[in-house]
């Protein structure tokens, strides 16, 4: 079940479309790892899975499983397990026979196939549900059976196409737990397609950001969040802060002042946009006359995000006209519960160096 998957320059073009659905995508998924492909609707997420599964042929490029090109192989010979957003349980088969389907079509005797199927049902915590009709299951149970059915085929790579997006949030987090259980039990290679950033970070080791058929970045969860390769990735990952400025002597200059950049970042001089996650920005309310050694701004807006609040903070331009920091800057910061801040408050802002990154466009 643990195979290495490599897409090498895969392009997919549908005959009646002008733009390619996938544009020279190269994606390396290590054996036993879980990669989430994240992107908005129409970004080609589902197409990439269908190409991996062999349900759609590639226009150019290679799909390599353990180093062997499978592009010419029919879906049934690729060993790719697929779970769609709809569970698609075969309505004319019982729960157990659904899970036993892969074994049955590969010629395993019915009794053995059912015995195996029972083990996979146990794994998704539906032991004892085998004799039921699939119509008797709830939405979450159906998706569990669908996962058990895909696992029972002992796929080399498990492909999950937005499998939990039709479930309510509570069930969804249970399913994330189930994926963790499956990963620790079988360590399959998993490619998960989702439009939900939280889901991607909860389940996957690495995130591949896809936009209009182009793979923008493939990195660890932390990497994609805190070191986005482009403003587009930063925005797709929900980042709200973009402060234009220039890099001089290893520091970023803008209305925020001089922000020293961590070692290991690209610090060559030139214009660059500073990006920092709103969750990483530290905010401290200041008294009316209180001085601060940090950057001081004025709160211009507050929006509630569950228990937290999202502050919009404005910083007055400090530099002279024509130099770095000549324009006002704005930062968004998430404030944990407990602090009292109002619109118009003065706040001191700290930016942890590890969370700050720059992007050149």
């Amino acid at each position, binding site marked *: 079940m643990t195979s290495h998957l490599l897409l090498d320059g895969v392009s997919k073009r549908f005959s009646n479309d002008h733009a390619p659905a996938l544009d020279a995508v190269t994606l390396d998924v290590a054996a036993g790892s879980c990669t989430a492909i994240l992107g908005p609707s129409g970004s080609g997420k589902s197409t990439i899975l269908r190409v991996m599964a062999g349900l759609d042929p590639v226009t150019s490029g290679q799909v390599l499983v353990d180093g062997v090109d499978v592009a010419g192989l029919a879906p049934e010979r690729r060993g790719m397990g697929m779970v769609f957003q709809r569970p698609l349980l075969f309505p004319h088969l019982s729960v157990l026979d659904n899970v036993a*389907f892969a074994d049955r*079509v590969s010629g395993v005797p019915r009794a053995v196939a059912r015995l195996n199927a029972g083990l996979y049902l146990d794994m998704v*915590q539906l032991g004892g549900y085998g004799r039921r009709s699939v119509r008797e299951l709830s939405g979450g149970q159906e998706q569990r059976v669908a996962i058990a059915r895909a696992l029972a085929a002992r796929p080399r790579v498990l492909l999950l196409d937005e499998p939990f997006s039709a479930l309510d949030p509570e069930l969804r987090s249970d399913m994330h737990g189930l994926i963790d259980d499956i990963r620790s039990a079988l360590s399959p290679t998993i490619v998960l397609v989702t439009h939900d950033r939280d889901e991607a970070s909860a389940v996957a080791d690495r995130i591949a950001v896809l936009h209009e058929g182009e793979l923008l970045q493939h990195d660890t969860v932390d990497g994609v969040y805190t070191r986005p390769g482009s403003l587009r990735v930063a925005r797709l990952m929900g980042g709200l802060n973009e402060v234009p400025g220039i890099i001089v002597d290893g520091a970023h200059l803008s209305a925020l002042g001089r922000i020293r950049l961590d070692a290991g970042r690209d610090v060559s001089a030139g214009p660059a946009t500073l990006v920092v996650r709103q969750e990483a920005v530290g905010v401290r309310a200041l008294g009316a006359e209180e001085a601060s050694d940090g950057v001081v701004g004025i709160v211009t807006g507050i929006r509630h995000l569950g228990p937290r609040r999202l502050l919009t903070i404005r910083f007055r331009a400090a530099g002279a006209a024509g130099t770095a920091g000549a324009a006002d800057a704005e930062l968004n910061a998430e404030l944990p519960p407990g602090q009292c801040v109002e619109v118009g408050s003065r706040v001191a802002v700290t930016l942890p160096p590890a969370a700050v990154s720059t992007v050149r466009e």
Partner: protein
Amino acid sequence: MTIQARSVTADPQRADAGRLRLPGDPGPRLTDSRGAGRVGRVLSATLLAAWFLVPLVPLALWAFADRWSFPEVLPTVWGIDGLESSIAQGAVPAFWRSLLLGLVVAAIATPLGAAAARALTMGTVRWPRAVGLVLLAPVALPPFAAVMGLNVVLLRAYVPPLVGLVLVLVVIALPYTTFAMRVAYAAHDIRFEEEARTLGASPWTVLWRIHIPLVAPALARAAFLAFLVGWSDYIVTVIIGGGAVVTLPLVIASSAAGIGNDSAVAILSLTAILPPLTLLLLLGLAGRRSARPRRRRPDTDPVDPRTARSPRSRPHEPGATR
């Protein structure tokens, strides 16, 4: 922290709810009729049943009436003259011929119609609306006119009458099978088949194990319609068959054309009704069994894994329920 809540919400299934609505129970449906609506529904259903059954009563009476003079309400002499007479007219072999013809037409027109419908629905046909209209044409065309022209063509092409007959009947049956299957394929999710492929099933296995079972009810309906075309055809059998193939409708027609054959015609007519009626009943029973609505289990199922998750996921809430 959840102890108090537990005594209230834990396991709502076990609480003797009597006629209380359980969570997940949708209650009476909007489509269930009540009061005056119900009376109206029963009344219209009865009238509809009478509409179909009343014409059969005189047929049933005539079938065993050796004599039934005009003013009498019931036959004056009962007997089986009609039965003997219809057997003498060759009703038995005609019955088998008709049955065979209906089955052959169904066996050819159903898969063809299914294939056409699938192609039309899945978008593999260039101009689906135009092709759909062409397929519908045999229904719109006056059969007599079409068949007369076709007969000349078939004779010139030296097509044997029996083959020609089946060929034309299949063409006439195609619109029915195609449209019955188009409805089914419109609701059919191709991803069932794709899922089966990724599970290791070859296209052939997918056809037999997934595709056909999923569209089986529609296939049965389509086959029934195609069977009816073959079973009840008169014009095509007379003209294209050229008298070589004597089917039940031909025997009925010739019998009805004569005088004093009322009881034989009644017997033959009843015979003609039987096979379609039997098939219809079988179809209804099979449909009832496969489409019996099953209530989804409510999400608070006592053994639902959501409530019986491994302790790993909720280490701090040993008795937690929702």
